[in-house]
């Protein structure tokens, strides 16, 4: 094991990891999304909460995360994207709340297909990354003591924003991983050694990526903390988002 070439390679890789920082730290998106759905379900006293995301060609909605009633059956479920309330929310970009579902057998059957759970009521809001719709977040059967659906839709939209932020972070890290691979391939191809590649990559990190990297690192730290910290972070992110929205020209009121 005392192969000097291998040792040098390991040292170079360690340097690359140092340059890339949080990009090579594991950010468990699935776990973050699970935390978001679980927190939302608890806050609203709901029977179930799920996130469904559009596939790359936007032909299907894939239920990636679910918490509560029928969670095992819902997770992994795929439906054509033009289906039911979730489909309408994704297509129109408008949130909607529906109750008295049991009065419409056809609708209830659509919703309950494959889940075995027939809800009385649901809230559904789009998950938006800027002007792009990524999917839909759905809440089934809120606690009866909750305020009106109007207020809870606005609150659920905050969780949907958190979902979008998590997905954006994941994408940024994926892009970065590809950059890393490209750098390595280039280094191998033109005979540059990895140490030089690490130095070059360190110089080349663009400013936007650096911000996203730091954000990703913070989220990675945050996910290891408790629910109180999650709530605190949510409040801070919410404030910052509201402040940024107010500053943006043409951004609503």
């Amino acid at each position, binding site marked *: 094991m005392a192969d000097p070439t291998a040792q040098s390679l390991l040292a170079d890789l360690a340097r690359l990891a140092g340059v890339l920082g949080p990009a090579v730290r594991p950010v468990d998106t699935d776990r973050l999304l699970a935390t978001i759905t679980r927190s939302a379900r608890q806050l609203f006293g709901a029977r179930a909460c799920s996130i469904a995301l559009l596939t790359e060609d936007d032909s299907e909605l894939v239920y990636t995360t679910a918490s509560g009633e029928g969670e095992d059956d819902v997770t992994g479920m795929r439906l054509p994207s033009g289906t039911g309330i979730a489909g309408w929310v994704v297509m129109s970009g408008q949130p909607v709340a529906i*109750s008295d579902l049991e009065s419409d057998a056809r609708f209830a059957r659509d919703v309950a297909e494959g889940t075995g759970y027939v809800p009385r009521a649901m809230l559904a809001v789009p998950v938006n990354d800027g002007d792009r719709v990524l999917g839909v977040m759905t809440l089934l059967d809120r606690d009866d003591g909750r305020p009106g659906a109007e207020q809870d839709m606005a609150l659920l939209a905050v969780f949907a924003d958190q979902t979008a932020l998590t997905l954006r972070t994941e994408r940024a890290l994926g892009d970065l991983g590809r950059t890393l691979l490209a750098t390595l391939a280039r280094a191998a191809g033109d005979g540059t050694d990895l140490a030089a590649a690490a130095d070059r990559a360190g110089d080349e990190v663009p400013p936007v990526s650096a911000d996203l990297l730091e954000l990703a690192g913070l989220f990675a730290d945050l996910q290891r903390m408790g629910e109180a910290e999650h709530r605190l972070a949510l409040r801070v992110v919410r404030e910052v988002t509201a402040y940024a929205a107010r500053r943006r020209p043409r951004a609503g009121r």
Partner: protein
Amino acid sequence: MRVPDVGVTREWAFAGATGRGVDVAVVDSGIDAAHPAVGEVAGGAALRWDRERQEIESVEGPHEDLFGHGTACAGIIRKAAPECRLLSVRVLGERLSGKGLVFAEGIRWAVRSGARVVNLSMSTGNEDLHSLLHDVADEAYFAGTVLVCAVNNVRAASYPSQYASVISVAANDATGPFDIDCNPHPPVEFGAPGIDLEVAWLGGGTIVATGNSFAAPHVAGLVARLLSKHPDLVPAEVKSVLRAVSRNALPVSAG
């Protein structure tokens, strides 16, 4: 808020009116013409994005409601304006691709087919579509067509609901047929019933729904009713009348 006492009352605006002779287009997921709450659908078109040809395909004539939402909106309009002529312009389909372009073309189709009122319970935040939709909204305005747009609850750019020429609507907690409110802090200009409403849905049934997208058709129906009684009003005047008959608009002369 107060608005000038221009002598416009609910009586003047709506009494005895039914929406007769006014075409109202619902740009949405289609309308189920067989639903008892909807009644007759006088015409329309189904638009979709042809991915292979990279262009919009438009098929005039009857089509079904893919989601139920368009039917819900149509039922609300029918209730407010029982004798209006409903047109269904289906722009929502199975895919998101090309949605914005299809959306804009759907509004244009409605304007050019002579609709005086167009209900838009949807919007887009896509900056690339800002100028295209603005052009379409201007075309509607100068053609005398009133665009009634649901506001998105999310605080973000939303077109065409935030353009000055359209009537933007959010849900209030009222239930009466004339319970509209005027918001002194635009771009959201009006509030109308949109919380826990019993609305028509697929399969001939009803569900109870909440959302700004159900408040907009309420105003669209009232506008149809107004235009059936006062057909010469232009969109700017329609907006003034809606302000004057809002629940929170007190005549100046009242003190």
